[in-house]
């Protein structure tokens, strides 16, 4: 057979590549079947088609808000950095003109001035943060919660740039020294990853309401937008509510009853 060295090398290279690829795929396909039967949801899990929250600003006062914030940050080991440039916050208070920039009127209703609105991730239905994440470290779950996978996050902070609501925080350093009392209910995070409110997905999985809702004394109403009989739906049916930066079309799922 007449073959020169260059052709031989080309054929050898191509065969090796195809062989390796094929072999790898074959091993994957033929590998013993997986572990689906071993993984279950907790029977008490709370499910929904579309989780959402209504904030009743008539019931939400400074003290209640403080309780909500404290509950969330304690349970989730959110560090208290103390430096506003590097702070990490999942839920906090903002005055009206900062929570709703662009909605500010010169002669605003008295009930809205000075009042601080409790803000958190809006778990948008059309989230720009999910759209930009290059690794799917943040994604929209079937029930609408915008999840974070801190194992996969590469810390590129594109999601922070994309969020129109400033809901996300980045760990500029190791957070552990700044956690006063550690809670075993949730892991801490590492430097280099982004974090935000997760609608207490880990509590919903065990049949518990989000921590802030439990601490809110009725000021936070959490429920399923996909269920016409749910509390939030009933409120929305009978009252006008505000959402933040509605015109951007992200479809935020935190509604403010003013």
């Amino acid at each position, binding site marked *: 057979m007449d*073959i020169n060295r260059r052709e031989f090398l080309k054929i050898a290279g191509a065969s090796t590549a195809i062989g390796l690829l094929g072999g790898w795929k074959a091993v994957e396909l033929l590998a013993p079947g997986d572990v689906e039967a071993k*993984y*279950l949801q907790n029977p008490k899990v709370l499910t929904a088609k579309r989780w959402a929250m209504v904030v009743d600003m008539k019931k939400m006062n400074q003290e209640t808000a403080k309780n909500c914030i404290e509950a969330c940050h304690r349970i989730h080991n959110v560090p208290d950095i103390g430096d506003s440039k590097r702070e990490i916050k999942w839920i906090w208070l903002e005055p009206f003109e900062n929570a709703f920039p662009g909605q500010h009127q010169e002669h605003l209703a008295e009930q809205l001035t000075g009042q601080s609105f409790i803000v958190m991730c809006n778990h948008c239905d059309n989230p720009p943060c999910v759209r930009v994440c290059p690794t799917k470290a943040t994604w929209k779950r079937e029930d609408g919660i915008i999840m974070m*996978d801190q194992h996969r996050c590469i810390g590129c902070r594109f999601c922070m740039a994309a969020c129109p609501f400033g809901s996300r925080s980045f760990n500029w350093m190791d957070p552990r020294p700044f956690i006063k009392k550690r809670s075993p209910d949730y892991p801490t995070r590492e430097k280099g990853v982004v974090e935000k409110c997760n609608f207490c997905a880990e509590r919903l999985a065990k049949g518990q309401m989000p921590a802030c809702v439990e601490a809110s004394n009725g000021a936070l109403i959490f429920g399923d937008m996909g269920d016409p009989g749910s509390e939030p739906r009933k409120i929305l049916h009978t009252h006008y509510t505000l959402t933040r930066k509605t015109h951007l079309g992200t479809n935020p799922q935190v509604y403010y009853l003013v």
Partner: protein
Amino acid sequence: MADDTKKVINSLKETGFFKQKRLYDRGKVIIGIIIFLALLSFPLFYNMGKAAKAPEPEINTPAIQRLPETERVCVEPKSYMKDNHMKLLNEWRDQVVREGKRDYVGFNNKKYTISLQNTCMECHSNYDNFCNKCHTYSGITPYCWTCHLNKPEEWAAGKQ
């Protein structure tokens, strides 16, 4: 194919490749080879005669001692855990975080809550004498512990 090899060897023969008698810079080359071999074999000679003890992770934690002897089992058999705990933990991570499935059915059909810090570390609370024994020996540093607490009771009590 054999003809081609013969042709190559013949052409090399013609140029005198196999007849070279001079190793240029012989001194430097030989010294270099000796130094290379010495460096390469250094670990072998340095540790010769010393037997590095195999690691023995301890499982006599208070939580395990509290269990009756027949119930001192992990979520999977010991041999499986020894070989595959890393793979299992990866699967656990994806099932919990990405699939939302937080219960695991172990090999004895017992249900466990999937949690490194609250299930695994509940029994194996002696992180330094259990996890670290093998990890230090093999020289690996998994970074689970920078997030997942390894001493849940102590954290809950506000220590560390």
